[in-house]
């Protein structure tokens, strides 16, 4: 419950306060958000499976974000940033879908 509240508060604060993101970090923000979403879905699935572990969640969340941003950063340096970010989004999207399917099986039993 508090976690959900945290999400809501984060969205509200982001919309109200309008913080300025450092321009160097800006290109990686969307990828980082998608990676974090993947981690969150994975965590939700683990919770429903009963194997949720906050340490695992924290590590997976942070590493997902960092690795995704790193891949895009590397792609930018190599000149294939657009393709690599597309690849990252596709992979994370597949993971999100499979996790969502597991969550759906738990919640709706279907």
């Amino acid at each position, binding site marked *: *419950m*508090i*976690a*959900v*509240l*945290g*999400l*809501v*508060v*984060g*969205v*509200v*604060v*982001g*919309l109200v306060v*309008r*913080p300025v*993101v450092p321009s160097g970090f*800006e*290109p990686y*923000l*969307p990828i*980082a*958000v998608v990676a*974090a*979403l993947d*981690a*969150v879905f994975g*965590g939700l699935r683990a*919770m*429903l*499976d*009963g*194997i*949720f*572990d*906050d*340490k*695992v*969640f*924290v590590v997976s*969340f942070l590493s997902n974000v960092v690795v995704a941003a790193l891949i895009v950063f590397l792609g*930018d340096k190599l*000149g294939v*940033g*657009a393709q690599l970010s597309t690849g990252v989004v596709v992979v994370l999207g597949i993971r999100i879908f499979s996790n969502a399917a597991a*969550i759906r*099986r*738990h*919640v709706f*039993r279907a």
Partner: protein
Amino acid sequence: MSSGREPGMTEEHHHHRHEPKHERHEHRHDHKHDGRAPQEPAGPAAEPEDEAAGASAGPAAAQDKAPAVTGRQRLKAGLWPPRLTRAQLIVALLLFVLGLGLAIQVRTTSDNGTLRGARQEDLVRILTELDNRSQRLQDEKRGLESQRSELETSSDQAAEALKQTRQKARELGVLAGTEAAQGPGITLTITDPHGGVESDSLLDTVQELRAAGAEAIQINNVRVVAGTYFTDSGSGVRIDGHQVAQPYVVKVIGNPPDLEPALNIPGGVVQTLEKEQATADVVRSQKITVDALRPQKQPDYARSSQ
């Protein structure tokens, strides 16, 4: 949150944390169980189970009770009642960060299009396009400016030409008698009580004045121009068909030192008029106004050949 249940929660939480493998195993059990009996009662909701797990806190107890714990019940238990545990707080913090990032990203994307999130190469491309565009616009601006200055000078020329044409039209109007004229000149007043002055005397006077350089002539209120004709009538003279009676006041614009002697020369206009028992009086003036006008006539057939 009830304080009485707090230790139980913590216990359960610890249990979850320290024995994930066991939990996974138990989960598999859960699935099988579900498969065999899908109508497993979800009734004894989260609370008894939590308490049970809290009380026993042992692997065996968990295994006993676990099959009843479905994902849905875990979700329910996680959502309500809210518990202030470390895991919840950490997850809340991370989700807060996620929400923040989401909101920022959504806002920047909707705020100023693709520019903010664009990568370097895209920005370079956009910048190049903008440069090209501004170059094109600069060219266009230069072309338009030269066109404008051209138009301005040409309109200046046109205005100048118009001014000159008007000036010329005024000068020609003075000659043609369609414009009033003003300038130095003389006033010749012919008083003729006996009616001795006839049209030929007036014509001689006009010819003499013209020869002396008169530029605009008016007799009484009739303008004298190139085509003016004089006819005799019973009581006086007709000029261009207008009856003119004595005294004849001839207003002449020209150079007074030229005009006056031309009239006064021996055997000239004044002496001839005096022979006719008329008196001629010449007065110089620096400001003679010739304001009798002739109607402007458009030629019916003649057109400018230019």
